[in-house]
């Protein structure tokens, strides 16, 4: 009977468990869970604060998930070291777990730069885990009297802002970058989103960030100062690569994995936000810290760990996110020639290179966007389609009749 050990208990771990069990019903699975709770949907922590979900509904799998899948979960335990020669994982309490196949699904952590005076701030939080959200909730209280400063106008910082706006007296978001959501939006698109955020009561300070803290005051790079009661640090995240690095494995910004999610250490796999996999739209390795990728990588790792055969070679960056009713979707890489279509407040940009759709940004009109995503993911030559510059509606009518018969006429 095979012994599987999974370090981590998030989405990639669930993918791994389900991948293993699709092949091997018998093997022994041990999950090392740093957090003392069953798997939940991390991206939902802002929705929790907003009141759009609750602690029960935000569970990622049902109550009997671990029992149904025959998993032993070690809650509140962290892996301290991996010894590939002994096939052993040593935990922080000294326990040793012996594995035949190991998956590192250790995720990422909030990166907090060494700000001057940060220790003088009493109520300061990161925004990554449910514990972070619960602590922030407690600090905000119910008086709606707290001024909140969020450092970082990325996906995490802005979702946090939306989530707490009705619980706070004011919310200010600053970012060193010259625009909001700088990792997924260009300047013009970011300006649309910024305006929308401001219309909903959020103060946005692009191109400016805190450089020094003194209790309830932040000195900004611009020389301005911001008074606050609660501080949220959403500057960025770092992949948890230390276990593999210390064990002699290949690590860059994430743990390097191949298309089977194997690391370069024998019988050691990795999946999720801790990895650096292949971005098919870019043709390069990149950390793709998004939930769909975490699941897919975990499932790929688990299937292969159990002796099955699965490859993941078409991962691309994907984001679907909304703020105060304005929805946007982005995918792939923004390289090549850009074509644009505007329709009222909606803006859609497509990026084409070498006859392939490489990426897109859709703001305000996201209907059937997956049709575009699959053109990127599956590298479908645009010359075979009726995909003009004014691709003004996502439709499978772009395909030839024969191609459509293949897509819709049988089991897919």
């Amino acid at each position, binding site marked *: 009977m095979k012994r599987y050990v999974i370090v981590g208990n998030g989405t990639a771990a669930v993918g791994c468990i389900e991948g293993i069990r699709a092949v091997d019903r018998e093997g022994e699975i041990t999950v090392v869970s740093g957090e003392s709770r069953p798997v939940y949907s991390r991206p939902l922590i802002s929705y929790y604060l907003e009141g759009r979900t609750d602690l029960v*509904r935000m569970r*990622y799998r049902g109550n009997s998930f671990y029992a149904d899948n025959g998993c032993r979960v070690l809650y509140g335990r962290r892996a301290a070291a991996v010894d590939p020669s002994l096939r052993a994982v040593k935990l922080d309490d000294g326990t040793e777990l012996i594995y035949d196949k190991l998956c590192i699904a250790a995720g990422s952590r909030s990166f907090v730069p060494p700000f001057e005076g940060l220790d003088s701030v009493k109520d300061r939080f990161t925004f990554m885990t449910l514990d972070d959200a619960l602590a922030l909730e407690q600090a905000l209280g119910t008086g709606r009297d707290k001024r909140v400063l969020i450092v970082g106008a990325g996906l995490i910082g802005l979702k946090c802002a939306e989530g707490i706006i009705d619980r706070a007296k004011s919310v200010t978001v600053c970012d060193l970058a010259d625009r909001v959501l700088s990792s997924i939006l260009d300047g013009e698109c970011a300006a649309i989103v910024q305006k929308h955020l401001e219309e909903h009561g959020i103060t946005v300070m692009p191109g400016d960030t805190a450089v020094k803290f003194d209790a309830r005051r932040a000195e900004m790079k611009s020389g301005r100062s911001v008074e606050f009661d609660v501080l949220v640090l959403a500057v960025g995240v770092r992949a948890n690569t230390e276990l593999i690095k210390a064990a002699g494995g290949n690590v860059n910004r994430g743990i390097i994995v191949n298309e089977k999610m194997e690391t370069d250490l024998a019988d050691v796999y990795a999946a999720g936000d801790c990895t650096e996999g292949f971005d098919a739209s870019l043709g390069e390795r990149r950390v793709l810290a998004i939930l*769909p990728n975490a699941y897919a990588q975990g499932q790929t790792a688990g299937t292969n760990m159990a002796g099955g055969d699965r490859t993941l070679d078409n991962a691309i960056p994907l984001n679907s996110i909304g703020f105060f009713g304005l929805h946007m979707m982005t995918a792939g890489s923004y390289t090549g020639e850009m074509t644009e279509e505007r329709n009222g407040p909606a803006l859609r940009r497509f990026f084409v290179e070498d006859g392939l759709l490489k990426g897109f940004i859709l703001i305000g009109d996201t209907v059937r966007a*997956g049709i575009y*995503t699959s053109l990127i993911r599956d590298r479908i030559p645009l010359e075979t389609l009726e995909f003009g510059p004014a691709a003004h509606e*996502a439709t*499978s009518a772009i395909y030839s*009749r024969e191609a459509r018969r293949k897509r819709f006429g049988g*089991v*897919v």
Partner: protein
Amino acid sequence: MKRVYVNEEWCLGCHLCEYNCAFANSGLEDMVLALKGRKLFPRIHVEGDDRITFAVSCRHCTDPLCVKSCIAGAISKQDGVVKIDRSKCVGCLTCVLVCPYGALAPGEDGIMQKCELCLENACGAPACVTGCPNRAIVYEERGGAE
């Protein structure tokens, strides 16, 4: 497993499937009450132009991207049917971003809904199929990977 398929050569583009779908999933017994004067949010929709029309609904894929991509764990596959737990969905639309077939759309409340083959509503079998005047939409077993 039986699925809904569309023979696009026979599709008239009449949109009746959309009406029948919306009615079947309304939970109401009176079609007029369910549909008249309302904006419809059917789980099947007709695409196309003046040359060709075809209805699109969930393919119930063998390896569904929506299930793997749902950030809330709200979508699952049970006995071959891809289902959504609307109480867990937060309307992030990630499933819309990943579905290659354009088969998913939110309901009136912004929460996702999808074709679940009418197996659990009063119809018991796909209403789009039963009501298709030209029998362009069929519910049958076809070959391929399962």
